[in-house]
């Protein structure tokens, strides 16, 4: 079945009606503005279904597509997905290449979706680690969708939080150098202005395009963040689900949002404090 047919299928029929009713009830309470996901469990899914790993990743890509559509219907404005970590380069080269091929296919599909639903697509990470063709395709897609702001999809690729912080520190230093600030002959009256501040670092983060996430979901039953959005998740509801990523569906999303709504006042209070 073509991916485009799948998208059309999602929007049609009684499933769509049921989903709309369910989401209408959910929207009585606070809806998260930004949901981030660590899509863990694709290979375990493949093993369980006795299929090859790449078919497992394909199923994972489809689950992400479903999540995007559900979030758009629910009223979530930002979705961020952890597609590929810098650490994942340590996997077998053949597996890495297949993931890169899947990334290229996904870029093509996202190009089609973004035109259909006016989605802004952003790739966050050290894109220089990607091959030239994927880099170009990603940059073209980011440029062509830069004007859309109804819904923002961020794909974290070649990303780790520590690399992001380091990159932000470097860019902040370059900015200060560019302003002609150095330690020689500094003016005591303007000391504070010369220092790098939190706001300088945050504006140079790969994730500066989106607000801090309200919910960070990790599938696969794991309880760690694996170097993903740690800087941004100080007041974020961390949700760990036992289901593997390709099996993540509408009811899992509903469950996570309900859990978020149960703790909403606590997180709102914390955001004001921090």
């Amino acid at each position: 079945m073509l991916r485009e047919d799948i998208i059309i299928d999602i929007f049609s029929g009684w499933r769509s009606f049921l989903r709309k009713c369910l989401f209408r009830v959910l929207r009585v309470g606070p809806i998260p503005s930004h949901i981030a996901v660590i899509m863990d469990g694709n290979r375990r899914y493949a093993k369980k279904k006795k299929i090859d790993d790449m078919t497992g990743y394909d199923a994972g890509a489809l689950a992400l597509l479903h999540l995007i559509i559900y979030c758009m219907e629910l009223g979530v404005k930002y979705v961020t997905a952890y597609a590929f970590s810098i650490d994942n380069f340590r996997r077998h080269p053949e597996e890495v290449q297949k993931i890169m091929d899947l990334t290229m296919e996904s870029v093509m599909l996202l190009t089609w979706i973004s035109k259909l639903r006016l989605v802004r697509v952003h790739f966050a990470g050290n894109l220089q680690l990607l091959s030239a063709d994927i880099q170009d395709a990603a940059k073209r897609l980011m440029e062509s969708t830069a004007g859309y702001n109804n819904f923002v999809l961020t794909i974290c690729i070649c990303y780790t939080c520590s690399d992001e912080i380091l990159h932000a520190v470097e860019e902040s230093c370059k900015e200060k150098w560019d302003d002609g600030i150095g330690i020689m002959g500094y003016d005591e009256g303007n000391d504070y202005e010369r220092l790098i501040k939190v706001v300088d670092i945050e504006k140079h983060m790969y994730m500066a395009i989106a607000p801090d996430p309200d919910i960070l979901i990790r599938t696969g039953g794991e309880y760690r963040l694996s170097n993903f959005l740690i800087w941004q998740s100080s007041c974020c509801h961390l949700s760990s689900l036992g289901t593997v990523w390709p099996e993540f569906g509408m009811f899992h999303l509903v469950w996570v949002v309900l859990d978020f709504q149960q703790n909403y006042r606590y997180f709102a209070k914390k955001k004001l404090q921090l």
Partner: protein
Amino acid sequence: MDFSNESRVLHRCSAQIGNLLLRSLWHLVHSIISICNFTLDIANVLESYLISSGLLGRYKSLHIAKLRYLAIVIDSEGAYQTSKIIKLLQWLEAVGVKHVCLYDTEGILKKSKDFVLENLDGAILFQDAHENNVLLDQQHMILEFVSFSDGKEAVVKAANVLFIKYSKHVVIDQNQKEKIFTESQMSEALKTVGLFFLSDQVDFRCYYQFFLLFVNLSFGTSSFLLGSGGPEPDLLLVYGPARCHLGFPAWRIKYTEIVHMGPLKSMNYGSLIKAIYKFTMVRQNYGK
């Protein structure tokens, strides 16, 4: 005209009824969830009791050596409950955990650290442990107290340190694509920021003086490990209403297992053992 007024009134009434119905459904769903959570809590309490009394055999032997460094995040409300914190640390000591980092956002635990140390036999502070070279000493429990200011603000301080260091030596091209700094340089800057900045006062002259210190200090395997630049915990236990790390220094929890333990006021020994046991069963791929 009357007909359109009537239809407007009818529309408004049906919208209000619809909203009321939706709100009722929403509250009903949340009530069901609260009941389910309450039932789960009771089940957890029962299980904790069974673990504490030693009736569940698999929890009797923990491979505690795997847990080299434990961090505990405590919500603001819980941070004032010093007696509970001391009890928790005593449980950890009894289990065999020797290195613990305590975190709360506002630094309340830092203020009560003397009281905690007095009431915990033989416990010492991380910086004292290093100064006296007793990091590897298994007799004492080593405690570290960390707060929100050791997170983002520490990274900012480290950034300024690196900025000063390299502004003297490097000609920077804005179009330069290669990395200027490495993660290990950032880690070293964070470690020494933790050593030097014991107060939150920021002054440009401080950075310059610190830069001289930074250049002249030699860092080997015995570097100071404090606050922002301390070791990465293997496990992080969150005592609060929700599962959230509340701004624990980001540089230190890249691959840390984060487990939610519930509010500190309802802490119990069985849940602690269960959390540690589950951690010892985890196998990480680190991206592979």
